């Protein structure tokens, strides 16, 4: 029996892939993402962490791109290319984890607010609305300033400030699922809140969550870069802190375009890739966007 279950899952995945493949932009995004993740994972194998140390920098200050330094060097003579590779680890790591945190909070709050009625739902939604109207960047800045600069606090700051829209979305979907007769049937079978939320609501909102997470990663990366640019850094190099470095050491006035453009373009590329992927996932998984519901 389990073999058949496995077969069905494989067939389901196959169908999903068939449909995803039709979303050309999504495939492009997925390829870019795959590349970025592979590079981030392989960096420790092909590059030595010591090159990030300003005291061990080998190149000249602000050297334009050359064969030795393909993307030039920074103000301390470090290779911009290598910094980008190391920076991608921080940016992606923070992006993923912050998005995950945001999605977990958003999904839990959304499902709870949609499932329970009365004061609980009203209370949760007021809190959500509060977070929704709060200037999240300012809040994140304040939070990271209070909590001190580490990857963990940055993740926390971004995650805690960005879940509200997700919660709204998930709540709407939960309400739609809860109105279905199978929920009534499940209640008549004796199901409690936990059973209904985990067995019926969660699987039905999961595709939405997945698509939304992908989009959320993109905005988390932007948020991290913005925070780093504004000075709330983790201490280790990320694309955002590179941008800040470039500004601080006058790369713009010195004409050191490689120092500004490379991290900037990396952010744009990865964020775009996540967005393309997320939109494609949404189109494939969200029955309302697909037009036909099953």
């Amino acid at each position, binding site marked *: 029996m389990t073999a058949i279950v496995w077969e069905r899952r494989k067939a389901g995945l196959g169908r999903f892939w068939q449909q995803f493949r039709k979303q050309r932009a999504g495939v492009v995004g997925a390829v870019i993402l795959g590349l970025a993740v592979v590079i981030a994972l392989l960096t420790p194998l092909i590059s030595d962490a010591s090159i990030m140390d300003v005291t061990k920098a080998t190149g000249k200050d602000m050297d334009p791109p050359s064969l030795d330094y393909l993307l030039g060097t920074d103000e301390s003579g470090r290779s911009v290319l290598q910094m980008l590779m190391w920076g991608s680890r921080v940016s992606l790591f923070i992006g993923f984890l912050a998005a995950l945190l945001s999605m977990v909070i958003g999904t839990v709050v959304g499902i709870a607010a949609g499932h329970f009625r009365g004061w609980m739902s009203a209370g949760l939604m007021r809190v959500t609305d509060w977070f929704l109207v709060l200037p999240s960047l300012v809040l994140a800045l304040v939070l990271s300033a209070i909590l001190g600069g580490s990857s963990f606090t940055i993740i926390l700051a971004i995650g805690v400030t960005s879940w509200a829209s997700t919660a709204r979305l998930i709540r709407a979907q939960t309400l739609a699922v809860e109105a279905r007769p199978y929920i009534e*049937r*499940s209640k008549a079978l004796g199901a409690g809140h936990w059973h209904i939320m985990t*067995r019926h609501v969660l699987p039905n909102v999961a595709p939405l969550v997945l698509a939304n997470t992908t989009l959320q990663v993109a905005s988390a990366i932007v948020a991290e870069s913005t925070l780093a640019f504004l000075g709330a850094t983790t201490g280790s190099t990320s694309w955002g802190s590179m941008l800040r470095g470039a500004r601080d050491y006058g790369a713009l006035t010195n004409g050191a375009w490689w120092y500004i453009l490379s991290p900037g373009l990396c952010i744009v590329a990865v964020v775009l890739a996540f967005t393309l992927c997320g939109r494609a996932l949404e189109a494939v998984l969200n029955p309302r966007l697909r037009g036909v519901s099953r």
Partner: protein
Amino acid sequence: MTEVLTKRKTLLEARDLHVQFASRGRKARAVDGVNLAVGEGEIVALVGESGCGKTTLARTLLGLERPTSGQVLYGGAGLDYGSRALKAYRREVQLVLQDPTGSLNPRHTVYEAVAEGPRIHGLANEEEIVRDALSRAGLRPPERFFLRYPHELSGGQRQRVVIAGALALAPRLLVADEPVASLDASVRGEILALLLRLREELGLSALVVTHDLGLAWNIADRVAVMYLGRIVESGPVEQVLTAPRHPYTQALLSVLPESPEPVVLTGEPPDPTRVPGGCRFHPRCQVLGVGRAAEVGVDGKCKGEPLAVLPAVPEPQVACHYAAATGS
């Protein structure tokens, strides 16, 4: 018929049940004083138009809705609305809904749908229970259906899965809300025959909520006709459906296809936020309308004097001033 009238032991009972809602700022008296009993091994049809409160009554009997006043009794004891007691009650009384497509989670296989009840209640031998329930519901061999998804089944098969899901908890009573209304004509009879067979094999009682008098004639022992939150006529199917005494029952029967003299009631289905005084049917009553009530001098009573709530007894009962006066 004598067999019907012999006193069955009452399994589920509604005693002077009232259920009210707030509806657009007004109070809707969805169920407005109902006595109804379902005996062991008995099939009772609850007949009425939409908006008459029959679905609310069924949901209240299942404990999915709390009564405003009055009581639901199961096996002689009042229903306990504590979560543990209610969960235990769920194993005894099960629900079958009108729309089998909506009643099944599209992401669950047939096996998961049927196993849901046993899993909730932590029953052992889950697979055996599922297999047994599916074959009882007429899906044989059961293994063939285990891994199908609802969208791969026909409407009739889906309704069988829903029934199997209810059977998996070995209930003693099924509450079926329009169990065949959304099914094709050809499948209808099959599902009804299944309910009859389950009664025969398992002694399963059923309360079938429907607007379809043919269904009552097909499978029910007793019928209760509901109008605007009250039961207006009840009794054995043979008596109520062949010699109806309440004008509303008479009208419902007269509009069935092929009937000689249809009495089409005018006006819209009644509104539970505006229950008329006197007999609640009097604004639409054809007997009052043509003046026959006036002939026997009850027209004043019809408009002004409310009727008593009918008792939950197997014998034929009717809540009508005209029927009482003429003794018909």
